[in-house]
């Protein structure tokens, strides 16, 4: 107990050593030397704060348990919120006890997948790993994930002293890195879809710059070289920076003819140094690529860990060749990523770089990524009220109950014409449940209709009602009142309201109602297949998280 309370640098290194000794022995000394992370700011917590922390842990966990008992929700964030009320610095207090330190992962896209990859790699390196729950990436959720591992004496359980991966919302990064002082901080990318939430991209960039200035100099910064706003953070940091990026000209969108992505408006940024415009020698995905400022010559930094070759292996797998200047020179390693899409090349690359920053060698990186069980994507199974829910990227012939989510955001491709090239005709008659949702639900419903699915056989759930039907809806409500006055039975009344005027179907809108409809139509014991586009997948995943229905990695691995 005393050892835990006053961890010294020496004991920390010893612990690291025991965790890693089975794998890379001689690289360890060097790695450990530059790893100390938060050790310098550790001081033994005094009795008072320990008592207070204990109280916070007790209060938080009691509140969480109560909330779960009363079915008020998963009880995840309430635990942290109550604990923080009792002891505002509970996160800092508990984080200093993390003997192996922590890794912080943030960015607009790919946080969850990157964290999961890192977690898989660290596990394969023989380390015990903890992750905060997906979706609880604000301060409260991070507090919860720590408090739930703590004892009422204000100390972490031994099992809780694992290497911790914090997936952090981009807006709270400055606070988090200051409180937990991570060994490695990973910034994946910065996309404009943050506009809706935080006003503008630049405000997030400013927060990140603040976060970097809050970082301890011992922290190793892992940055995406191909994303201008992210890579630029490296220039503000005095400590060690590792960049990752793609160097495969075959992935260059500007050279690929006819792909819809080629025509996507790139999320171009201006040079932070001189305000000039960036041009791209290569562009891989949205604004990711080899950029350079036309006026001052500021350009993409050379990546330390880079993908030299990437190709689609199967429709849901990628094969990449990865080389690194961090580890002793070898041939590029080949890794099969069990996920599709170039954004997953970046996610795997970010994870590999973070692992190398922690001094981990190739073997666990390769096996960790290859054995990775997708958090979502093909094959994920989630239990929902007695039904199994599977998330897929593309359809399978055997699916009897299917929820399609067709979005046309930039990441999905604006053009949905491709659905007319998909052979939906094959699925006709094989499915019992068909729900079409997403921003282009109506397009998909039309496609299914012309494939031979009658409108009675499918449920269409667009994001919002047509504004053009507003007048009719008002009229309908008027009718409803009239019917109420004439003592019509309630069931008929609700039937009437729910119908979309001029159509035969009920008005259901939004991803939550789509999921409800699909789950309810799937008989208990059977499997519902969810087939989303990329952002549709994120929406479904977010919705499942809100309902506490996502499989949680750290629970799987540590319980």
């Amino acid at each position, binding site marked *: 107990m005393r050892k835990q309370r006053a961890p010294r640098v020496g004991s920390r290194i010893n612990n690291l050593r025991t965790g890693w000794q089975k794998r890379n022995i001689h690289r360890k000394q060097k790695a450990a030397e530059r790893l100390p992370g938060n050790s310098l700011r550790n001081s033994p917590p005094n009795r008072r704060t320990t008592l207070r922390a204990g109280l916070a842990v007790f209060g938080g966990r009691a509140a969480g348990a109560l909330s779960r008992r009363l079915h008020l929700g998963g009880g995840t964030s309430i635990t942290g919120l109550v604990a923080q009320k009792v002891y505002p610095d509970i996160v800092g207090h508990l984080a200093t006890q993390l003997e192996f330190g922590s890794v912080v992962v943030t960015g607009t896209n790919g946080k969850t997948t990157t964290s999961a990859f890192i977690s898989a790699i660290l596990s394969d390196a023989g380390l015990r790993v903890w992750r905060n729950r997906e979706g609880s990436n604000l301060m409260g959720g991070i507090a919860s994930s720590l408090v739930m591992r703590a004892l009422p004496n204000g100390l972490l359980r031994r099992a809780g002293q694992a290497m911790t991966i914090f997936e952090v919302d981009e807006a709270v990064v400055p606070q988090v890195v200051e409180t937990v002082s991570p060994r490695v901080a990973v910034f994946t990318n910065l996309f404009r879809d943050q506009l809706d939430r935080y006003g503008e991209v630049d405000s997030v960039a400013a927060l990140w710059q603040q976060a970097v200035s809050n970082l301890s100099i011992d922290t190793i910064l892992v940055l995406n070289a191909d994303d201008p706003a992210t890579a630029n953070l490296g220039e503000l940091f005095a400590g060690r920076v590792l960049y990752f990026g793609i160097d495969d000209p075959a992935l260059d969108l500007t050279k690929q003819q006819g792909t819809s992505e080629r025509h996507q408006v790139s999320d171009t940024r201006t040079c932070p140094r001189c305000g000039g415009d960036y041009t791209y020698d290569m562009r891989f995905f949205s604004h990711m690529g080899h950029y350079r400022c036309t006026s001052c010559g500021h350009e993409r930094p050379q990546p330390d860990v880079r993908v030299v070759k990437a190709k689609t292996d199967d429709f849901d797998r990628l094969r990449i060749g990865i080389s690194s200047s961090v580890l002793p020179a070898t041939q590029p390693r080949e890794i099969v990523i069990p996920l599709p899409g170039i954004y997953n090349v970046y996610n795997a690359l970010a994870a590999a770089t973070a692992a190398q920053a922690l001094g981990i060698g190739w073997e666990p990186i390769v096996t960790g990524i290859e054995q990775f069980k997708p958090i979502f994507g093909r094959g994920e199974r989630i239990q929902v009220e007695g039904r199994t829910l599977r998330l897929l990227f593309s359809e399978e012939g055997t699916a009897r109950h299917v929820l399609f989510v067709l979005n046309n955001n930039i990441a999905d491709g*604006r053009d949905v014409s491709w659905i007319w090239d998909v052979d939906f005709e094959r699925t006709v008659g094989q499915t019992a449940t068909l729900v079409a949702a997403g921003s282009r639900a109506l397009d998909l419903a039309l496609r299914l209709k012309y494939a031979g699915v009658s409108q009675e056989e499918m449920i269409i759930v667009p994001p919002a009602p*047509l504004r*053009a039907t507003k007048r009719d809806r008002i009229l309908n409500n008027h009718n409803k009142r009239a019917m109420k006055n004439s003592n019509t039975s309630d069931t008929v009344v609700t039937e009437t309201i729910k119908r979309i005027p001029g159509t035969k179907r009920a008005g259901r809108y939004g991803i939550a109602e789509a999921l409800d409809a699909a789950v309810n139509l799937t008989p208990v014991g059977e499997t519902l297949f969810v087939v989303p586009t990329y952002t549709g997948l994120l929406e479904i995943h977010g919705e499942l998280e809100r309902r506490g229905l996502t499989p949680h990695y750290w629970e799987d691995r540590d319980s």
Partner: protein
Amino acid sequence: MTQNMTPPLTLTLGHLYPDQLNLYGDRGNILVLRRRCQQRGIELRVVGLGIGDALAPDEYDMLFIGGGQDKEEIPVAQDLHDIKGIGLWAAIEDDMPVLAVCGGYQLLAQYYRPASGSDIRGLGVFDAWTIHKGARVPRCIGDIAISWNGSTLVGFENHGGRTYLGTARPLGKVLKGHGNNSEDTTEGAIYRNTYGTYMHGSLLPKNPHFADHLIGLALRRKYDIWATPDTGTTGERTNGTTSTDGDTLASLTPLDDTLEWEAHTSLLEKLGLHNQAVATWQAHNAVKVS
């Protein structure tokens, strides 16, 4: 029903260059034409016409040409000129309905001038020409709505070339989007019953009135008792499913197009065209509620 008094109706659609010009899901147009015929007891046969195949105008009632990439347009243009040109011209002059989308549209005009390389000669059906102004000029990409025949057409466009009309009549006026060249608010071109357009999406699923217009044209051309949907007198019949020209002229059986019009209206709303959205919805909603 008219089928009672006529022998089974059959139409043959010639799909030009299905293997070369097939880029943007334009297959949806054919699926829609086939199904809308089928639901009315009309058999629609689809015949693919690849490079090297002759086009005998007597064997077809409708023609469709899709879009492709620049590099694919060169052999197609050659074939169009050397092999199918005469047959296609004969069909067009004989009022056969022809739908040409994107690359197909460009090839039916006078010429296509790529960003680099020499001009690709077109068939000259439309007095129009297309110029690709190079990679520095942004492509015309996005959802598009145009006015057509008292109603609207909606789709998705994605083209680098800018088309300028000479004496050719435009298909419609751009309400939102780029159209032919994003300068003069024209979109597409018409010559006799030949329609050229940049609209993908696919075009016909969300524009059932245009699909029926083409089917009506083909039926009237083949079986003279059939009316074209829009030779009528009033501008209200935007759904193209009714005709009151006379007792001797049959009309296409109206189908339940609620979903089509909902998708059409939804896209108008996404483009901010709320007046047109309300007008479209009410026009077609009124037909449905009885």
